[in-house]
């Protein structure tokens, strides 16, 4: 490392900010384009080639809007909430190893840190709903809390299972253990846990619910709650929520890639690790969008039932089976 540590960190911070912003902007483009294809229409086409500059136009539009703070709201918390929802997502990204060499900070308890900061998301959304002093927003805030608490339980059970297999919380080491061919990826380690694909599905479902994405988008539910917790937000404070949603999605998919799909490990042995990490990450992201534009929204108690009655028992069974298998073999 030729650069001094503070400069390196500063560069990474700027890089991460740019990555989060640009990534969110063009993921919106990808989402709109793919939604268009699913719905047999072209999606954005006007601004730039194939609408590629549409995110720039959208961003300028959002920035130019009035930053409105409703008179009855709690102005401080209302302003604070968008920052609180974006900052933890950025902190999580700092520990993600995107390739062998590209990681802002390698922490030996990276996995714990990702989930610790990821949980702040709930608090921020709840504050956003509460500070708005809007009935739709408060209903939405209440939903977010019960939903995210419910889904953190099976999520952590799955993560504990993975921890038992990897034996480390260092994200870099987790990937390095899986290096050398796709049969070494955790997803295919069925001799340690015969239900490994199920484990992955449980993780993916919980991630959808944690990030409030369709079909679990109870928080926004625009046909019931107008815009849910974000009803009173305008201009770029709303834009920050939007960016945070995609940033959280990137974190969720990146952790999924690292835990199950071997991180930057190449299945073919060609092309750099960054490419493979990006490919796996964005394939997962695409699956998320696919789900969103195909399925209707679930009902709230079905959502909670799914967590407490189905996912938690399944992940407990997985945990027990894995520990037994590891003891036996």
């Amino acid at each position, binding site marked *: 490392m030729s650069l001094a540590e503070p400069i390196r960190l500063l560069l990474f911070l700027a890089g991460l900010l740019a990555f989060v912003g640009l990534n969110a902007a063009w993921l919106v483009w990808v989402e709109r384009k793919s939604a268009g294809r699913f719905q047999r229409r072209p999606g954005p086409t006007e601004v730039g080639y194939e609408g590629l500059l549409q995110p720039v136009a959208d961003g300028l539009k959002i920035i130019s809007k009035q930053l409105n703070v409703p008179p009855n709201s709690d102005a401080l918390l209302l302003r604070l909430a968008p920052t609180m929802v974006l900052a933890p997502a950025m902190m999580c990204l700092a520990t993600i190893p995107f390739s062998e060499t590209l990681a802002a900070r390698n922490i030996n308890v990276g996995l714990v840190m990702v989930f610790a900061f990821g949980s702040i998301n709930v608090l921020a959304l709840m504050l956003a709903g509460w500070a708005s002093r809007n009935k739709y927003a408060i209903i939405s805030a209440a939903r977010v809390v019960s939903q995210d608490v419910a889904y953190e339980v099976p999520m952590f059970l799955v993560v504990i299972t993975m921890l038992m297999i990897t034996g480390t919380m260092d994200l870099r080491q987790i990937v390095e253990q899986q290096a050398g061919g796709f049969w070494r990826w955790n997803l295919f380690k069925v001799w340690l846990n015969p239900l490994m694909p199920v484990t992955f599905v449980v993780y993916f479902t919980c991630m959808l619910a944690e990030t409030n994405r369709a079909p679990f988008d109870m928080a926004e539910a625009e046909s019931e709650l107008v815009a849910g917790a974000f009803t009173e937000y305008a201009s770029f404070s709303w834009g920050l929520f939007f960016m945070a949603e995609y940033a959280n999605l990137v974190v969720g998919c990146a952790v999924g890639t690292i835990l199950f799909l071997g991180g930057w490990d190449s299945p073919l042995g060609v092309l750099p690790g960054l490419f493979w990490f990006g490919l796996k990450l964005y394939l997962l992201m695409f699956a998320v969008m696919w789900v969103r534009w195909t399925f209707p*929204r679930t009902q709230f108690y079905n959502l909670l039932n799914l967590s407490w009655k189905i996912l938690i028992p399944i992940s407990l069974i997985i945990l027990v089976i894995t520990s037994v298998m590891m003891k036996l073999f």
Partner: protein
Amino acid sequence: MEGSASTLGVAVGAEPRETFVINVGPQHPATHGVLRLKLTMDGEYVTRAEPVPGYIHRMHEKMGENRPYAKFLPNTSRIDYLSAMHYTHAFVGAVERAARLAPPPRAEYIRVITSELNRIASHLVWFGAYLLDLGGFTPLLYAWADRERILDLLEGITGSRLTYCYYRFGGLCNDVDNEFIKGAKDFVIHMRPRLDMYRRLVTDNIILRKRLEGIGHISQETCRKYGATGPVLRGSGVPYDVRKIEPYSVYPELDFAVPVFPQGDCMARYLVRMEEMRQSLRIIEQALDKLPGGPVQAKAPRVLKLPAGDFCCAVEAARGRFAVRLVSDGGEIPYRVKLRTPSFSNLSLFEEASAGLMLPDALALLGSLDLVIPDIDR
């Protein structure tokens, strides 16, 4: 957000639960128009739902009472803009009964074909919008693509895409061409696999089934009490269809079933409408095969004066029974025009049926009633 003592959590069993009022509409994504619902909520549960109609009241009845019959005809298609054909059919039918005008058979068959096409278009709009209410975006666009074919077909013969004024007293304003007949036949062939696709993509989806089955129950008793008709009534297990009970036009000569589902939940109403589209296709197919030749307009007087009396005609519109009652005193202008619209009765039961539901379920129930707001206010 009153900071009263009761919010401090002093648990007194006899004290009524704290409720709040939430306004759904007149501008709300779930109401599809300017309907306002005042929901008294206990947490997420609806304790009382009070519909506040009237935001788009246009005095259609009064307008009918101060102009000649022919000049009121275009108004009827604006009442329920999604099933305009049925509404003009009822008004034309009432006038024909009074004036003893018999439209030629070809006109009657074309009326049935266009009415059923209109019914499918209306149900497709409901299907897309309902899925949108339930958070599924994509089916809307698929339904729109299919509906577009119907609109193009009807535009070709009527000149308009939504508010048709195609039926005339004693016939139709113009005959259909070969292009329309071929287009309608093609549409029937095109639509059947699409309905199967909708079943695989949407109806059989476990999320949708869990969302609709057993939700928003409406009993037969409630339907009777509020005069609910159409798919709402048939979804509660009553085989009431004006086309069968009070046959009009050439419906008795055509073979079709009245889909009835006894469960009375949102899913039953959903299935009734999906099945009705299939039956409408059957009707269109048969009517196209039987379509006779001849004129499409009977001889009608230039200045229409109805004999004094009380005349009524009801049709099965996409949302239920639509009836026109004309009271004539023998002049050119009716003494009284009464419009019986299905959406109004179907909305009336919402307050009773939605009590105790959670907010998303209440909105699923609202969507399953398939309300068109101008049809409520008229």
